[in-house]
């Protein structure tokens, strides 16, 4: 190969950067269509709620016009209690909960299927309002489609038998196409489970195999409240225990907006951080800061494990590792050469400092993201049972205005004794 060709090849390589896993995720439909900022989510929900209210009113109007008992729309519309944006979200959260309990406790489905069904349900209600399609009905179709799409097929008849009462094979299938359309035909969902499993191995790789002598962590003294650095050994049991607990949090993360706002690896790490902060911080600092320098030192044939002990920084967000490079002293070199070597050394040093700074900035940013992810996970609010019943009743009448009219008629006839026709909440 000529020099020119070599240069050309180098040039080509520079033009085509390596595709990272992150790049691939950015091409996924989950990222392109179903990831949002908080504001975008809010906007969508407002839009869906407005659309739902409009359709509920229209439906009532149509029924009034058709009704022989001559209900005036103008008088009936006051009876119709529309669902607010907040209530709508509470209702969805409530049924996410129902769906999760049903799929894990009753149907005993694999976590992948459960998570996908939940994702479908939540995505559906960013397109349709609960006032258009009752979540109780939609969740059955979500379960059916998720199972089918995740290679875990369940016949509509079987599923209907499990779900009982009003669910029939027909009612499940009836909404399938509506659901697929609401999803814009995207069905591949990425969940935190695979990422969690990957981190389980990487935690072991970094915290045990790479640092057999233990890792340095910052611990707060219970009595004095003082932060202290110490070297500890993290064993396999501790990692495994963290993994099991983190997996439970991954189930929790399916509720609420976490999956709309964060990527699966972010959620997985946030779960680990939540259940074992010390271990996770150690992993992250070694993986993204300390080991980055260690690699360099090893390249130069030096490894200074002990140095870590001398660290004076005690801020977990600032995991600086001090390390110095012995200046090369060579008596045989001329002053000029020495000067030059010194300059080169200085430049290298500066570059290293810069790189280190970048690693630290990256780490800080990541910790910030993970903390915000934990806050999102913690902030999920489901309705109380009373709230749920109230909202569910509203939803029921928005979808079935004929029943509202019927009730009105009955109330008129026998003074509202049948008012308490309960809507059963299953689950």
């Amino acid at each position, binding site marked *: 190969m000529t020099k020119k060709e070599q240069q050309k090849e180098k040039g080509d390589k520079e033009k085509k950067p390596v*595709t990272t896993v992150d790049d691939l995720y950015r091409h996924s439909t989950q990222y392109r269509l179903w990831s949002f900022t908080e504001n975008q989510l809010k906007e969508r929900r407002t839009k869906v709620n407005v659309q739902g209210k409009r359709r509920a009113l229209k439906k009532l109007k149509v029924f009034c016009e058709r009704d022989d008992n001559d209900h005036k729309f103008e008088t009936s519309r006051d009876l119709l209690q529309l669902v607010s944006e907040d209530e709508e979200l509470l209702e969805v959260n409530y049924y996410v909960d129902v769906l999760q309990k049903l799929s894990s406790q009753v149907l005993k489905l694999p976590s*992948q299927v459960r998570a996908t069904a939940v994702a479908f349900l939540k995505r559906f209600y960013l397109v349709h309002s609960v006032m258009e399609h009752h979540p109780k009905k939609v969740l059955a179709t979500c379960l059916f489609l998720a199972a089918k799409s995740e290679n875990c097929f369940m*016949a*509509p008849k079987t599923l209907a038998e499990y779900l009982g009462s009003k669910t029939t094979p027909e009612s499940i299938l009836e909404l399938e196409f509506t659901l*697929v359309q609401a999803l*814009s035909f995207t069905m591949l969902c990425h969940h935190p489970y695979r990422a969690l499993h990957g981190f389980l191995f990487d935690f072991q790789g970094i915290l045990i195999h790479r640092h057999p002598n233990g890792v340095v962590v910052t611990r707060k003294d219970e009595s004095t409240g003082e932060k202290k650095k110490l070297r500890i050994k993290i064993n396999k049991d501790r990692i495994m225990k963290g993994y099991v607990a983190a997996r439970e949090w991954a189930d929790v993360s399916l509720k609420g907006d976490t999956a709309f706002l964060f990527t699966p690896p972010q959620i997985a790490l946030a779960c680990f951080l939540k259940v074992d902060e010390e271990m996770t911080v150690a992993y992250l600092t070694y993986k993204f800061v300390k080991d980055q320098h260690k690699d360099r030192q090893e390249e130069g044939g030096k490894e200074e494990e002990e140095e870590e002990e001398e660290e004076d920084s005690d801020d977990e967000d600032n995991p600086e590792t001090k390390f110095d490079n012995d200046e090369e002293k060579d008596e045989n070199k001329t002053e000029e050469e020495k000067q030059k070597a010194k300059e080169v050394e200085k430049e290298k040093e500066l570059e290293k400092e810069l790189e280190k700074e970048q690693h630290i900035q990256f780490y800080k940013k990541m910790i910030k993201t993970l903390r915000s992810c934990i806050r999102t996970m913690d902030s999920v609010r489901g309705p109380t049972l009373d709230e749920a019943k109230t909202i569910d009743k509203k939803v029921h009448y928005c979808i079935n205005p004929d029943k509202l009219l019927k009730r009105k008629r009955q109330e008129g006839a026998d003074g509202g004794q049948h008012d308490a026709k309960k809507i059963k909440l299953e689950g």
Partner: protein
Amino acid sequence: MSDIAANYTKEKKVGEGTYAVVYLGKQVKTKKLIAVKEIKTGMFKDGLDMSAIREVKYLLELRHENIISLLDVYSSENGNLNLVLEFLPCDLEVLIKDKNIVFQQADVKSWMLMILRGVHHCHRNYILHRDLKPNNLLISPTGEIKIADFGLARSLGSPGENLTANVVTIWYRAPELLFGSRHYTSSVDVWSVGIIFAELMLRTPYLPGTSDAEQLEVTFRALGTPTEKNWPNVSKLPWYNSLKIYPPPTRNELKNRFIAASGSALDLMISLTQLDPAKRCSCEEALQTVYFTEFPRPTKPKDLPKKSS
């Protein structure tokens, strides 16, 4: 939704299967030729067909020059699901069978490069195709290979998850599948690519078994019977029993079988068709072999042989 339907025309029915009808049509705005796969819905007791779901699911995630593009999805007035795909007039099987065409080594290399790039893209997205064969490798008017038919595709299994072994057309089915393995990986696709490579050189199917049982026989007669020695734990697979033991072929035998193959072409084929899936190379490794960098350079897609007619 039906606004989208107005963007496309369906002009000619070109095929009909159990779950879909394929039409040739045009994108109204650009006059570009397209294919519309109309998936019958509502007539099945289990709802949308599983193959249709897989096809849409995976094609929406994959965008690559060597994978067929799904341009649009819409529902037609009768409630059917319509997939608008790029129009691809030819496939690799047609070319292999067309005895008027001569394949140069550079042509074979070009096809292999495109196939491996496409399959690699699936694999790095954790998607297994599970039905690679010349018939599913479509060819664009400009000569590019486009992997199609994701009706059997699935995501890489989770640890402990059972997968079905009943995938891939038997001639291209990896030995672990022939043995009924329930835990397999992207290496099943790599095997298929290896067998397609052989077929491109031989111009005839490499391992044409007529039944599942005979496929084992044909495969091992050509490549040797796997044993505990060259494939640890193989005897624990469900359908591994009372096999006739064939010795693995020597390099010389392989050389005679593929007369035109260069040393590095043979090396690549051997890596792609390792019996033990753990020893089989990945697409990435295959793409980095000398075969693709040594002379001759792969033919440019537009200069590749085309269907004679």
